[in-house]
């Protein structure tokens, strides 16, 4: 008998990729901690790639939690909302977590009341609405892809309209990050409801929620939520815990066996990919009237006293979250936003989080392991086995070092997803990904 809820009988196992230590249980021992509204937030108006939003508030103005503060400057651009109630103190360019240059920000000094803006009434009948209405709602909510790319959800859904498959990504394959796991454990019903809303907005036929073999509690919770929901269009799929199985193209290949053409989009193979947290945020908007003002952030690593998952307001300073997690211990060597593979090392903890901040790792030497010296390539080929795009990193390295543009293009450097798997396995400790990022930039500029 086939299980109506399971999309596939066996976990999907990739031929490529690397197995890293996962260390997710560090932060899943306790339930999600809902952070109180912080005393101050700094909300970036340029969280997603592209032009920043235009600030619609001025210093001195009072705003309510959930009130729009930045309006889109073009089609497909997102709107931003105040994540606490209080008074706007600055509208200026500031550094935020994860970006190297200052971006336009709105700074709000909280009043502690957390009074909600009444402009978005809950809409319990949202899943009966038309695709166009729902897409407009997604745009109003300022929804961004919470997997980390922060691509505006409304725009992504719009450009994929009619794609038959909605793939919800709950696989978070990087070590330490457990926010999607925690979300599925505690709020699976919200993910399922959001998945159905996104499916309606897309006009698709099937929603597949992908989770990983190493999250048993989340799988049970999701299974129960799917059973309770009883919508036969929504199913779950399980993939093996291997990095980078959670990459968009990699997940589509694993779950659906389809390959997104080079230079194309998932919609070209009939798929829209969204993070499970984005689905939950859609449900929060339509069913509770809450725009994107918060996200789940994993705070973990050996350098923090009580690792946990925190529901934090967008714009909260990193240091506030570290304090909520018990503060620092054992002199962390790095402060990483994201996972240890693709994450960025933050220069300071006074930076404010954005929608892309899925994880903050206060990493000690024990977390990261010793730094190693670079040696010549011994052509072991381990990087080839690790590469999810079937590239030849060791040949790309030669082409990148000799700045051979034709060879770089032939070898497919443009298909490099910068996952770092080749770096990770390299016994000679060659920083391959850095070479490829530079080479891609050089190719793009010619």
């Amino acid at each position, binding site marked *: 008998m086939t299980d109506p809820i399971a999309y596939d009988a066996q976990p999907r196992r990739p031929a490529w990729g690397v197995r890293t230590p996962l260390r997710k249980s560090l932060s899943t021992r306790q339930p999600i901690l809902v952070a109180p509204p912080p005393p101050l937030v700094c909300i970036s108006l340029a969280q997603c790639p592209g032009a920043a939003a235009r600030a619609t508030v001025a210093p001195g103005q009072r705003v309510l939690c959930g009130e729009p503060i930045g309006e889109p400057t073009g089609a497909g651009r997102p709107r931003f909302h105040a994540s606490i109630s209080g008074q706007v103190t600055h509208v200026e360019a500031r550094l935020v977590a994860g970006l190297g240059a200052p971006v336009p920000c709105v700074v709000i000094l909280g009043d502690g009341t957390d009074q909600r803006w009444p402009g978005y009434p809950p809409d319990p009948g949202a899943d009966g609405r038309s695709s166009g209405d729902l897409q407009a709602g997604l745009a109003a909510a300022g929804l961004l892809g919470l997997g980390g790319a922060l691509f505006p959800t409304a725009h992504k859904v719009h450009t994929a309209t009619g794609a038959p498959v909605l793939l919800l990504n709950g696989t978070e394959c990087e070590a330490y990050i457990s926010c999607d796991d925690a979300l599925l454990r505690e709020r699976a019903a919200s993910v399922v409801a959001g998945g159905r809303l996104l499916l309606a907005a897309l006009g698709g036929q099937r929603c597949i929620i992908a989770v990983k073999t190493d999250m048993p509690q989340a799988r049970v919770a999701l299974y129960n939520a799917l059973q309770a929901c009883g919508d036969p269009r929504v199913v779950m799929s399980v993939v093996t815990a291997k990095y980078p199985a959670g990459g968009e193209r990699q997940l589509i290949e694993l779950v659906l066996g389809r390959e997104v053409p080079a230079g194309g989009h998932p919609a070209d193979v009939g798929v829209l990919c969204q993070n499970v947290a984005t689905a939950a945020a859609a449900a929060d908007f339509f069913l509770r009237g809450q725009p994107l003002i918060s996200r789940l952030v994993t705070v973990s690593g050996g350098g923090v006293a009580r690792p946990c998952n925190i529901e934090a307001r967008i714009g909260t300073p990193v240091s506030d979250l570290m304090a909520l997690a018990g503060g620092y211990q054992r002199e962390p060597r790095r402060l990483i936003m994201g996972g240890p*593979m693709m994450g960025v090392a933050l220069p300071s903890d006074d930076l404010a989080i954005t929608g892309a901040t899925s994880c903050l790792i206060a990493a000690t030497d024990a977390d990261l392991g010793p730094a190693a010296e670079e040696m010549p390539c011994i052509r072991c080929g381990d990087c080839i086995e690790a590469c999810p795009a079937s590239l*030849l990193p060791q040949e790309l390295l030669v082409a990148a070092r000799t700045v051979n543009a034709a060879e770089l293009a032939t070898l497919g450097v443009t298909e490099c997803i910068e996952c770092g798997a080749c*770096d990770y396995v390299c016994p000679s400790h060659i920083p391959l990904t850095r070479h490829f990022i530079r080479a891609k930039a050089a190719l793009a500029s010619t």
Partner: protein
Amino acid sequence: MRFATDLPPQWHATVSVGGMMRTVLYALVPALLAHVWFYGAGILLNSGIALLAALATEAACLRLGGKPTAPDLFDGSALVTAVLFAFCLPPLCPWWVTVIGMVFGIGVAKHAYGGLGYNIFNPAMAGYVLVLVSFPEAMALWPAPDIGDLDYLRPDLAATLHYCLLGSLPDGLTIDAVARATTLDSAKEGLGLMRTMDEIRTRPGFGDFGGAGWEWVNNCIAIGGFVLLLRSVIRWHTPAAVLGGLLTMATLAWLLDPNTHPSPGFHLFSGGAMLGAFFIATDPVSSPTTARGRLIYGAGIGILTYVIRTFGSYADGVAFAVLLMNVTVPLLERWTRPRVYGRAG
């Protein structure tokens, strides 16, 4: 609070070139012990001399190339090359033969091509082939294995040392008393004299498949090879293809006429077949990096080994086969490039 930053990835698997080389050396320990058991301590002596020569040559080459000696000299690669080279040498071997082989292997085959990672030819095999063609008599001096039932004088440590340092045996010992033809030599010679394999196998020195004693060294080398596979230092493609290629050729010929062709088991357990398959052909630097490339490369070594053993003038052909296939590696890699994700075939 402020933190130091670095570009991603922020961490790294606990693998290193030195670690890989160490694993290779550990994997050779059983075979080394078996070698000492059957043939005496000669291999330890030869390994020591080869290592000193390899390190001296490597240090000189790094200095000549203006590179810092410290990390590269101790990455373990010279040690692995020296031990693998010593496995090819007879236990009785004059020191200058060993030194010449290593100076050529490390100095010319490795460093003249750019050092670790850039050499086209396997340094141990290049060194071995040089001494094989330059000192053919010295390379044929294999003492009979110490299996207890043979009427011969075993060179003790003092005699081995004497031969190693001076190139001659102490008074009272003659080469003929301590050395025997290897089974590969016996088979080649016997078949040349129109004897059948059954007749040839009645000679002392033959074991179950290959040479008595030597087949146990080969067993231990295979065990070491499996250790390398389990520890992910090597992949299955190359050894499987080498042994598969050799076995296919040997089986076909043997099925045609078992009297005039040694059995497939004899081919597998004689000479350098196991060492070649698990430790030489898998040298990452001088072999292809793609899975399909490794299969073709390995099969080529297996087939060429058979061809050289059968039709060539040398009894064993592993070293020549490896060097010949080394030349094809750049071409094989170009032919076997995988299709890039998302691109049309």
